[in-house]
C-alpha cells in the first residue's frame, strides 16, 4: 500500500516534470506575446506624440521660413508683427508673453512659497486638511474661468485704482495678475513637497540649538529644499508662458511692442488662439505662422522643463 503510493507519486512527479519541460518552459504563449506587444505599443504612443509634435510643427515652420520674404533673423529680431503686410517679427508677441509671465511670477512666487512654508512648517494637520483641498480647487479651476475673472473683476479693479486713462480695457497687468493666482497652487504644492522632504532630524537639531521656528524654517529647511523650490519656479514660468485663455480673454488682441503693463498686447498663445479661431485656410502665411510660433513655444517650455529637472536633480541635498 505504502509502496504503491510512493510509486504513483514518483510516476506523477516524473510525468509532471516532463510536462513542465515540454509544455510550460518551452511553450510559446501567443496571447501573452500579443498582449505584451500591444502594451509596448501603448507606451510608444507617447513617444509618437512627441515625434508628431516636432514633425508637424517643424514641417509647417519650415514652410513658413521657406517663404522668401521671411528670414529667421528677421523673425527673431523684428519688432513688427503684421502678417497682412509681410512683417514677421516675433518680438512684440514674445515681449508681452514675458511681461505677463513676469507679473504672474511676481504674484505667485512670494505667496506660493509663504503658503508652502506655512503648510509644511506651521499648520496643524487639521488646518492642512482644510487648506489643501482649497488649493486643489484653485488649481482645478479651468483657465477660461480665470480669463472671465480677469476681465470682469481684475480689469475693472485696476481701472478704478489707476484711472481709465492709464489702464486699457484689455491689458497685460490684469492677465498677468490673474495668471499669478492660477499658478500659485502649483508653486505652493511643489514647494511644499520639497520642504516636507527635508528630514525631521534637521529641524530637531536646529530647535535643540535654540532656534525659533522662523529661523529653522528660513535658515535650515528652506536652503535644504531650495532645489525643489527653484524647480517649482521654473515649472511655474513654463506654465505661464504656455497659458492661453487668460491672455486671449484679457490681454487684448493685436500685437503691440510695449513694456507698459497697462497697455493691450497680444502674446504668442493669444495670437495662435485668435488666428486659428476663424476659419483658417491651409498653406497661407497666417496658417504657417501659428506653427512657427507654436514651435517656438514648444521649444521654450521644453527647455524650461528640462532645466527644472536638471536643477532638482543636480542641486538636491541628499540625506541618507
Amino acid at each position, binding site marked *: 500500500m505504502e509502496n504503491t503510493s510512493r510509486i504513483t507519486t514518483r510516476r506523477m512527479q516524473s510525468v509532471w516534470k516532463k510536462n513542465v519541460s515540454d509544455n510550460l518552459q518551452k511553450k510559446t504563449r501567443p496571447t501573452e506575446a500579443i*498582449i505584451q506587444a*500591444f502594451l509596448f505599443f501603448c*507606451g510608444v504612443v507617447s513617444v509618437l506624440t512627441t515625434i508628431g509634435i516636432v514633425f508637424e510643427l517643424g514641417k509647417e515652420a519650415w514652410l513658413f521660413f521657406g517663404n522668401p520674404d521671411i528670414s529667421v533673423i528677421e523673425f527673431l529680431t523684428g519688432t513688427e508683427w503684421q502678417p497682412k503686410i509681410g512683417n514677421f517679427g516675433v518680438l512684440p508677441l514674445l515681449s508681452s508673453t514675458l511681461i505677463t509671465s513676469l507679473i504672474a511670477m511676481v504674484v505667485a512666487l512670494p505667496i506660493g512659497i509663504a503658503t508652502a512654508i506655512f503648510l509644511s512648517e506651521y499648520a496643524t494637520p487639521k488646518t492642512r486638511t482644510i487648506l489643501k483641498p482649497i488649493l486643489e480647487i484653485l488649481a482645478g479651476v479651468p483657465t477660461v474661468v480665470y480669463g472671465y475673472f480677469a476681465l470682469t473683476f481684475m480689469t475693472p479693479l485696476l481701472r478704478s485704482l489707476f484711472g481709465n486713462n492709464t489702464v486699457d480695457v484689455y491689458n497685460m497687468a490684469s492677465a498677468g495678475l490673474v495668471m499669478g493666482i492660477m499658478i500659485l497652487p502649483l508653486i505652493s504644492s511643489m514647494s511644499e513637497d520639497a520642504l516636507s522632504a527635508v528630514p525631521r532630524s534637521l529641524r530637531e537639531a536646529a530647535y535643540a540649538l535654540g532656534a*525659533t521656528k522662523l529661523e529653522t524654517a528660513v535658515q535650515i529647511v528652506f536652503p535644504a529644499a531650495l532645489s525643489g523650490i527653484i524647480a517649482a519656479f521654473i515649472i511655474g514660468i513654463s506654465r505661464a508662458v504656455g*497659458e492661453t485663455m487668460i491672455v486671449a480673454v484679457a490681454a487684448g488682441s493685436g500685437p503691440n511692442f510695449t513694456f507698459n503693463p497697462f497697455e493691450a498686447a497680444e502674446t504668442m498663445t493669444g495670437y495662435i488662439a485668435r488666428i486659428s479661431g476663424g476659419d483658417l485656410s491651409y498653406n497661407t502665411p497666417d496658417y504657417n505662422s501659428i506653427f512657427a510660433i507654436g514651435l517656438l513655444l514648444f521649444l521654450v517650455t521644453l527647455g524650461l522643463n528640462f532645466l527644472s529637472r536638471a536643477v532638482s536633480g543636480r542641486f538636491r541635498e541628499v540625506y541618507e
Partner: protein
Amino acid sequence: MSQSDTHLFGEYSNDAVKHLVHQRHSRAKLARAIFRTATLLAVIFLATLLVTVLNKSMGYVVIQNKVDPATISDQPITQLTNAELAEILRTNLRKNRVRTLERAGFLEDQPHSTLVQLVQAEIIQPEVVESYNLMPSLLHRNQITAGAAVEHPGAHVEFRYWLNGQFLSNTMASQPELAGVRSALFGSLYLIVITVAVAFPIGVGAAIYLEEYASHNSRINRLIQTNIDNLAGVPSIVYGILGLALFVRTLQPLTSGAVFGIEGQNGRTILSAGLTMALLVLPILIINAQEAIRSVPDSLRQASYGVGATRWQTIWYHVLPNALPGILTGTILAVSRAIGETAPLIVVGASTFITSDPTSPFSSFTALPIQIYNWTTRPQPAFQHIAAAAILVLLVALLSLNAAAILLRNRFAKQV
C-alpha cells in the same frame, strides 16, 4: 548663581540676552503672521472668484415686452386654459406659422407649458434692456426700479437667475436671454466619451508596460518615461496645433467621416477634438495609473506567480483589480482637466454658433468652455451674465467629478 549666569553667555549680560531672545521671538511671531496671511490670500482669491461669478449670475433685469400681455388677455397667461392660449396664438400669429405649429397636432392638444412658451417667445417677445449684478440688486433695489420706470416706460423689473431650466434646455441663440447651453453640454459629453474611450486603454496599457514589463534600466524605457514627463508640461495649445495638423488636416478622410460615407464635413469634428484631447490627457493618465500600479504590494504578485500564474494572468487577475480605484481616480482627474480645456478646442476648430445637438462623432460641435469664451468676449453686458451661468454649470460638473475622485480615494485608502 547670578554670576555664573552672566558667564554662560560670555560678554552678554542677562538683560541683553533676554532682549535678544525677545527680539527673535517677536520676529518669529511677525513672520508667522505673514505666512498665515499669504495662505489666507489663496483662500480669499478663490472666494473672490466664486463671488464674482455668482454676482454676475443673478440679479434684477429690466424687461421690455414687444407686446404687452395685458392687451392679449385680462388674466396672467399661465392661468389661461389650452383653448384660450390656442385662440391667442391663432389671432396673433401669421397663418403660415400656425400651420407649421399645428403640423404635429391641434394647438389645443399640445402641452400647456409648450403653449405658454410659444405665446411668450412668439407674441410677447420679452427683451432684457438692462441687467444688474446681484450686489446692486440687493443694495439699490429702489433706485433700480425708479430708474427703470423713467428710462424704459412700460417695462417691468424682475429678479432673474440666469442659470435656470431654460438656460440648460435651450440651444445657442443670438439673444442672451434666449441662449442656452444644451448643445454645448452634449458637445462636452461627446468629447469626454471619445477622450476616455481612446486615452483610458492606451494610458493604462502604457502604465502596465512601464511598471510590469519594462526593465527600468533599458534605454528605450527610460526614454519613454522621460518623454511622458515632458509631455505633461507641454502647453495645451501646442496639442491643439498638433491636432489641427494631424487629425483635422492629414487624417481628414477619417475624422470627417468620408471613409464611412458621410459627406459634406471637413475635419473640424468632435472626433478630431476628442483625439486631440486624448493625447493631451494621456500623460496625466499614465502617470496616475503608474502610481496606482506601483502601490500594489509585491507579495500579491509573488503569491500569484507561486501558484503558477503567467505574467499576464497575474496582472489581469491580481494587479489590475487592486490598482483599479487608483486608476479610476486618475482617470477622473484627467477628465476634469479635459472638460475645462479651451485652447486646443479653439485651434482644432470648435464652432461657436451651433444650434443643433451633435448627432455623431463626425458632427461639428461646440463645448461648454468654448461657449464661456465666446460669451465672455462679447461686448454686450447681458452675455457676461450667461457666461457666468455657464461657468457655474462647468464648476458644478468639475466639483462633482472631484468629489467622486475623493470618495474613490478614501474608499481605496480604507481597503489597504
